[in-house]
């Protein structure tokens, strides 16, 4: 049995099912991170004092540059498919995957440095919210990498059997990835600079 409206748009919404589905998923993600941002505001406004300069701004800024670059390569992976440039699509998707990996390696060094100094999430309220927010964000990076690895590997077969559906899947992956980038755009100043 074929699932309807994977490529063609529904007459009532004007959207393919996957498109509306990924946006509803992202809406739930907004609420998830929103709850944690709300927690951060309450903890910070209620604290008698708040630490400043505990995190490496350089490492945070490098990770921001990495994620922004990965957003550009991700949207180019989709645009290349639309322009029927298969090899460019592969290159951009692999680049996005590699940049995501570099982000995590950077984060690993950052975490290691803190943990070596005994600055784990138990050490202070600030470090607890820092590890919670960046840890959850890091899990989203891992999730995105798993999806990208699938489309670089076994999932790429669909490009031959159903190219339009494959293009849609890359678009939805991209929407998720840009959301992950968007969350970091707010995490960076909130945690590293303020």
């Amino acid at each position, binding site marked *: 049995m074929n699932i309807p409206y994977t490529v063609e748009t529904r007459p009532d919404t004007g959207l393919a099912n996957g498109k509306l589905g990924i946006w509803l998923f992202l809406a739930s993600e907004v609420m998830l991170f929103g709850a944690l941002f709300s927690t951060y*505001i309450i903890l910070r406004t209620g604290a008698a004092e708040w630490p400043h300069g505990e995190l490496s701004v350089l490492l945070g800024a490098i990770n921001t540059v990495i994620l922004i670059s990965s957003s550009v390569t991700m949207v180019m992976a989709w645009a290349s498919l639309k322009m029927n440039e298969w090899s460019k699509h592969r290159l951009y998707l692999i680049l996005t995957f590699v940049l995501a990996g570099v982000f995590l390696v950077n984060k690993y060094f950052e975490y290691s440095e803190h943990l070596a100094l005994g600055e784990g999430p138990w050490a202070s309220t600030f470090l607890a919210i820092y590890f919670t927010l960046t840890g959850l964000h890091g899990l989203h990076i891992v999730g995105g990498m798993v999806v990208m690895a699938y489309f670089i590997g076994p999932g790429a077969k669909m490009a031959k059997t159903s190219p339009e559906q494959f293009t849609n899947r890359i678009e939805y992956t991209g929407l998720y990835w840009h959301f992950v980038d968007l969350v970091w755009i707010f995490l960076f100043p909130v945690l590293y600079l303020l």
Partner: protein
Amino acid sequence: MQSDPAEVKKTVRKYFMIGAALLLFTAITVAANLIHLAVPLAITVALIIATIKGSMVAAVFMHLNHEKKWIYASLMLTIVFFIVLLFVPLLTISDTFGTHISAPGAPAHGESGQERKD
């Protein structure tokens, strides 16, 4: 959302331009942090720049500048709930802003652990 390959080709340059603008705004955010502005001003500047960057990602990379009304409707609903989520919890503590709250058993603020004389 563009579906025509020729139309997509035209937007490729825009994607790179937006990417460059995002990197520039990141540099501005870090530079503003080096100036050591007053805390309220620093928070305002950093959040305004982050909002501009986020809007650029949403509008151009996520194609929200030309989407279907169902997407906008679901996002509007999300924004309403997001605002409620951010501000309703604050109302529960709004009467205690600026009040030092000690942990149970800890000496009260300003008493320095000395016993109170009645």
